[in-house]
């Protein structure tokens, strides 16, 4: 029998903004209002989140604004320091070493070689003072590529793949539409062929027709590249279209997890029921 290691394992991730107090650390159920402590004001952005992502799988994370979705991706991409928890990548030390105990230098290596991220806000993921090709090359340069011709050729392939006309590769993403900016981010995230992509609200704020094209692109990447993805969205319709399995977040907690189809057909948690019925 062969068992394949999950691409990514997250174990008991918590993230607090604030130091917390006895009340919210020991009796979260009564002390917290939403994700915030009534006594000390500490924000419990994530409380004990655990999940796995399997090879080639798309894991959806859905939940209302402020439920902690972006915080999960920020911790995984080392943009934020988790308060506690562990994470393992199959591609890093064969899944035996916790990412969050790695040194700054190792973290940079992991981020540049093993992860790709699309930010909710393109301003955070792209440098608007540089051309699109340089934005894509940045990820390869960060992974120590020092060959201009090779990086330019790779960027060209990725831009074609993400359907950005290559004659515009020297244009700054500043001059692109929102949908194109997201596609440049996707091209950049794919540049080092990471085993997993972190996608934060890739279609939020885009026109419906543009949304549909970006979603098609993600489907196509999944089919052609077979890369695993975490797809964060507050929009259950997007999740339903793309995610194999889904986690439902509320106030920093996982309230439900399972196969997307099952969750859609038979939601268990009242909050999930509310979400699903609102789709109908």
């Amino acid at each position, binding site marked *: 029998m062969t068992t394949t290691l999950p691409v990514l394992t997250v174990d008991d991730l918590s993230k607090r903004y604030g130091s917390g107090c006895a009340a919210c650390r020991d009796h979260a159920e009564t002390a917290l209002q939403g994700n915030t402590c009534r006594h000390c004001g500490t924000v419990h952005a994530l409380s004990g989140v655990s999940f796995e992502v399997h090879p080639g799988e798309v894991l959806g994370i859905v939940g209302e604004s402020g439920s902690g979705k972006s915080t999960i991706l920020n911790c995984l991409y080392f943009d934020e320091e988790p308060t506690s928890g562990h994470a393992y990548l199959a591609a890093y030390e064969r899944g035996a070493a916790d990412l969050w105990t790695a040194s700054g230098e190792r973290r940079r290596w992991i981020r540049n070689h093993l992860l790709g991220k699309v930010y909710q806000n393109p301003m955070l993921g792209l440098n608007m003072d540089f051309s699109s090709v*340089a934005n894509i090359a940045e990820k390869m340069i960060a992974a120590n590529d020092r060959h201009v011709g090779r990086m330019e050729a790779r960027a060209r392939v990725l831009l074609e793949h993400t359907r950005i006309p290559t004659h515009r590769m020297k244009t700054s993403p500043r001059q692109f539409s929102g949908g194109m900016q997201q596609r440049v981010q996707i091209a950049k995230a794919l540049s080092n062929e990471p085993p997993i992509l972190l996608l934060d609200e890739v279609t939020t704020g885009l026109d419906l027709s543009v949304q549909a094209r970006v979603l098609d692109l993600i489907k196509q990447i999944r089919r052609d590249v077979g890369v695993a993805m975490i797809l964060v969205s507050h929009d259950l319709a997007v999740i339903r279209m793309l995610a194999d399995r889904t986690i439902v977040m509320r106030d920093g907690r996982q309230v439900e997890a399972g196969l997307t189809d099952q969750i859609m057909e038979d939601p268990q948690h009242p909050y999930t029921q509310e979400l699903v019925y609102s789709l109908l």
Partner: protein
Amino acid sequence: MSRHGTYNFAFLDEGSKREIRRATLKAIAIPGYQVPFASREMPIARGWGTGGLQLTLSLIGPDDTLKVIDQGTDESVNAVNIKALIRSTTGVTTSDDTAEATLIQSRHRIPDKPLRPDQILILQVPIPEPLRFVEPREEVTRRLHAERDYTGAYVLLFEQIMRHGDVTTGADPPVEVHDRYVMAPSPIPRIDNPKMDHGDALILLGAGREKKIYAVPPHTRVTSLAFDDHPFRSEDVDGRTCALCGAEGVFMDEIQDAQHGGTTFRCNDTSECLARMNARARAS
């Protein structure tokens, strides 16, 4: 009170000089690393070399011979003013001859004549941070240096290649010092970059407004950032001959000839040019 009027020798008080020397020693000990220092107000406008001036004043002794160059010339208003200030507060001798000088303060050039172990070159720096254009926040650039993350400097180069096809234009091309820190060599022409590599003289760099001192000690490896398929290249000086001294292969200024409409070239390093002209006159 010293014999030079109301000022202390070399203008700065001894406490300030000691503080600058301490920062200088640290800079020499960590080649290419930007050491913060408490930059003083100087009686010249900021941006006109207060960083270089403070280095010069903290190092100069009565037996030194000083040369000051501004973009290759010893006679610009700026160079003359700096020399006058230092002369009046120290009484040292000044010289235009690179070979005679023990301390050389310069803006935008490294002299063409190779420097000797007993000489110190002081370069004035406007923007000491090679990553500033890609990262405006000082606390972040510090971390990037600590982690030796120079991605941003290479992205900048990559972008120049995308825009211009190659990187042979633009002064201040960043260098890696002693295989560790990337630094801005101050806005010198690219042709001066290789002069920093394994030189005989100590090179100090001072930024007054940004309050930083850094150094390239003698015999230190200095390499210009480049890509495998785009190696570092200097400005193309081939086919240019100095109209005054006949030199070739050195950095030249382009002179538009208003009368005849053409372009002629002159050595940018005027004291070397003059020396060559004198040698020619003696020979004939």
